[in-house]
């Protein structure tokens, strides 16, 4: 960052702040067009699609229908003639995905908070190295990371070899294709997202508060619970969201580590579009439900942030 020179008058920036005022529209037009045309319009069309009638060969018929949402929420029996009741199949896929994402988020928090704290309390030069080491894996191809994890924890993989060799276990651990493997995969995929925002919050924490608490005979852990955690909470919440949201719609970890039993939302959506028996309106409806869930979470977050700032 450039430090403002002392000779700079506070308002000298204001005029150059508006250098590009007259070019504002042409400068922003590409962004508006690309995001508007290739993201907002497609999402709107997806919303329309979820209310269309499915065609047998994977396309749609332009006729309004609630069939996709009906299929998601309501069970009418195999032949559609039984009294309507709540359909649990898809709700339970969402429930399982939420549980998996929540477990992964908790794991990330348990490992991520102490790591972030440790990094933030190092000397500045050491901090840079640690942050770099934490960020590098995030930029490595996620597919390759997930395949590597699969290779490491598979039945006769290096992890089991090492554990068997050291005599810690007598039988190889059956890790692959379990719920735990999926949680581990999500945890491993998004751990850097937890560490970085917590680090940013702890770095700004005023440690004299901890000293004051220690002077008043609070133990370390009481200080952590009653003083530190409430102050760094925004960082923790941001980290949790950054892990939870991509975990919820994840495709690679459940697909490569979980096997058929550990189906999550991502696979449910993918099946509707990639398989021959796909149902596009239903896939669009499931995507709409997933997106609404995520947007509600983000809105709640924005509101809690606005409230915290107002205080």
């Amino acid at each position: 960052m450039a430090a403002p020179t002392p000779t700079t008058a506070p308002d000298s920036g204001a005029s150059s702040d508006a250098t590009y005022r007259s070019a504002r529209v042409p400068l922003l037009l590409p962004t508006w067009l690309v995001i508007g045309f290739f993201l907002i319009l497609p999402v709107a069309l997806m919303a329309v699609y979820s209310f269309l009638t499915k065609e047998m060969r994977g396309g749609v018929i332009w006729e309004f229908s609630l069939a996709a949402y009906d299929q998601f929420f309501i069970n009418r029996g195999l032949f559609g003639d039984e009294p309507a009741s709540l359909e649990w199949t898809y709700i339970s896929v969402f429930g399982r995905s939420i549980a998996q994402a929540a477990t992964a988020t908790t794991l990330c928090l348990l490992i991520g908070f102490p790591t972030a704290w440790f990094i933030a309390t190092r000397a500045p030069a050491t901090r840079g190295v640690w942050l770099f080491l934490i960020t590098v894996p995030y930029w490595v191809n996620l597919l390759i990371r997930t395949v590597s994890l699969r290779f490491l924890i598979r039945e006769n993989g290096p992890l089991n070899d090492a554990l068997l060799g050291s005599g810690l276990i007598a039988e190889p651990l059956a890790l692959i294709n379990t719920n735990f493997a999926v949680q581990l995969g999500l945890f491993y995929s998004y751990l850097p997202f937890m560490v970085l925002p917590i680090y940013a919050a702890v770095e700004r924490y005023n440690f004299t508060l901890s000293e004051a608490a220690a002077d008043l005979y609070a133990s370390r852990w009481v200080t952590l619970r009653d003083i530190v955690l409430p102050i760094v909470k925004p960082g923790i919440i941001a980290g949790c969201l950054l892990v939870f949201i991509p975990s919820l719609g994840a495709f690679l970890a459940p697909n490569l580590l979980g096997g058929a039993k550990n189906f999550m939302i991502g696979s449910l959506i993918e099946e509707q579009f990639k398989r021959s028996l796909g149902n596009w309106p239903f896939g669009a409806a499931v995507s709409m439900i997933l997106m609404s869930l995520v947007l509600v979470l983000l809105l709640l977050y924005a509101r809690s942030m606005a409230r915290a700032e107002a205080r």
Partner: protein
Amino acid sequence: MALRSVRHYPGFFSIAMLCLIILYAPLIVVMVYSFNDSPSITNWGGLSLRWYFDVFTGPEAPRFRAAAWNSLTIAVLAATIATAIATAAALAMLRAGKFKGRSLTFALINLPLMVPEIVIAVATLIFFTMIGFTTGYLTILIAHITFCIPFAYLPIAARLQGIDGSYEAAARDLYATRAQSFFLVLLPLMAPGVISGYLLAFIISLDDFIITNFVKGAGMETLPTAIFGSVKQGIKPNIMAISTLMLGVSILFVTLSYLINRKGRQSP
């Protein structure tokens, strides 16, 4: 001493080390096994480069070469276009005064980060199908440009925010035109942010699997989709060699971006 003790929590160092081990162990294991001179992925048969030769000359080589070419050209094009768009947007957001719709535009730029990837994938596929656009190279490129914009924007805007307006003011006082003061003064100052944004957009494009998998259409492959296709039949040693090569590329790029940023921070 008191200062140290309130910062110190027993066990936190071990957890931080554990964090590093978890993040790196799978990558290191795959890297080591990519040099294994054995057709089996379980047994160790000594050091060799045979799987690297296999990647370039083996039976799957033409498929991987085509996929790598697609991945590379898409990443270069998407990163270049996204960086240009993001640089223009950053100028308008930070050097064009306050205006109505500024926070809306900011939300728009960040939208690709907020919508779940799989939802973007579905929406983009539906969009291209509806307007009758054949899925293939061009649809992948368009989708990549769209989601690369926020990744390019963030470092560029962060850098621009740190540049004092007086440099440009001085240039204008010396009768530089707006274009001259941009290309001769502001752009060189912004360069670390622009390069950083470009590199991140490039890696993000190279990395993408889900969206590409939806919009690629039949017969078109990028490296991630080709690797995914192979892995579905089991992890073979040549996949580990490719993974190690891609790992090297990612690490090289992030290190470059890190060094450029650090150097940029030392000079104004």
